[in-house]
């Protein structure tokens, strides 16, 4: 399984990353699934002025690689690639890209969801939200934990 993780401040171009992935894999992959996470602009309350993402260089990448390895053990995948941004982000900015390639779409869809569910709980990032003058570090949500835990019940 081709596995690639990048954590960086620069924005990414989904088309370019997809093309690079297709270049890296053979012709056996009939399905490529892409997930892009974006900073939401919320109109029900004060807008998010800024989202700051902090990471531990080296350890963060390895925490993501460990998740990708688990996905590779569970599904037959040709490639998984994760690009995760850090630093200061604004509403509507891209945050994360997950690309999964496999022979068939069932594995690609499931593995992509698995990777995102584990990224939300296990990846080593801290997020600080600034909203209308209030600044606070975001705690993990119970919903994300429960969603990750459903994979342990062999949902996939």
């Amino acid at each position, binding site marked *: 399984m081709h596995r690639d993780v990048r954590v960086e401040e620069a924005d990414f171009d989904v088309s370019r990353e997809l093309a690079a992935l297709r270049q890296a894999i053979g012709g056996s992959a009939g399905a490529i699934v892409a997930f892009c996470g974006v900073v939401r602009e919320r109109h029900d309350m004060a807008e998010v002025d800024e989202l700051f993402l902090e990471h531990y260089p080296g350890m963060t990448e390895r925490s993501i690689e460990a998740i990708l390895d688990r996905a590779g053990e569970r599904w037959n995948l040709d490639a998984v690639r994760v690009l995760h941004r850090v630093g200061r982000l604004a509403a509507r900015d891209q945050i994360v890209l997950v690309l999964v390639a496999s022979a068939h779409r069932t594995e690609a869809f499931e593995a992509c969801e698995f990777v995102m569910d584990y990224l939300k709980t296990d*990846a080593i990032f801290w997020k600080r939200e600034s909203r209308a003058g209030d600044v606070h570090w975001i705690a993990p949500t119970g919903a*994300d934990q429960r969603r990750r835990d459903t994979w342990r019940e062999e949902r996939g």
Partner: protein
Amino acid sequence: MTVRVRLFASARECAGCATMDLALPAPMSVGALIREVSARGGAELAKVLAAPGTRVAVNQELVEVDHPVRDGDEVAILPRVTGG
């Protein structure tokens, strides 16, 4: 021994610094090191260190409080992660 302590997120903000280079007596456990950092860093930092979900990594590997710290180690204080 000399140990570099790295602080992240709320721990970093409470301590007012991202790193602390400490001269400490050997041997010392991770738990004892945390108490040392807690004592030096003030009440707010102590709260973060004691909070559920706060973890410690030595040379980028997660460890328990009884893990021995060695000269030259990088000890990272990791508050509960938000996730990606």
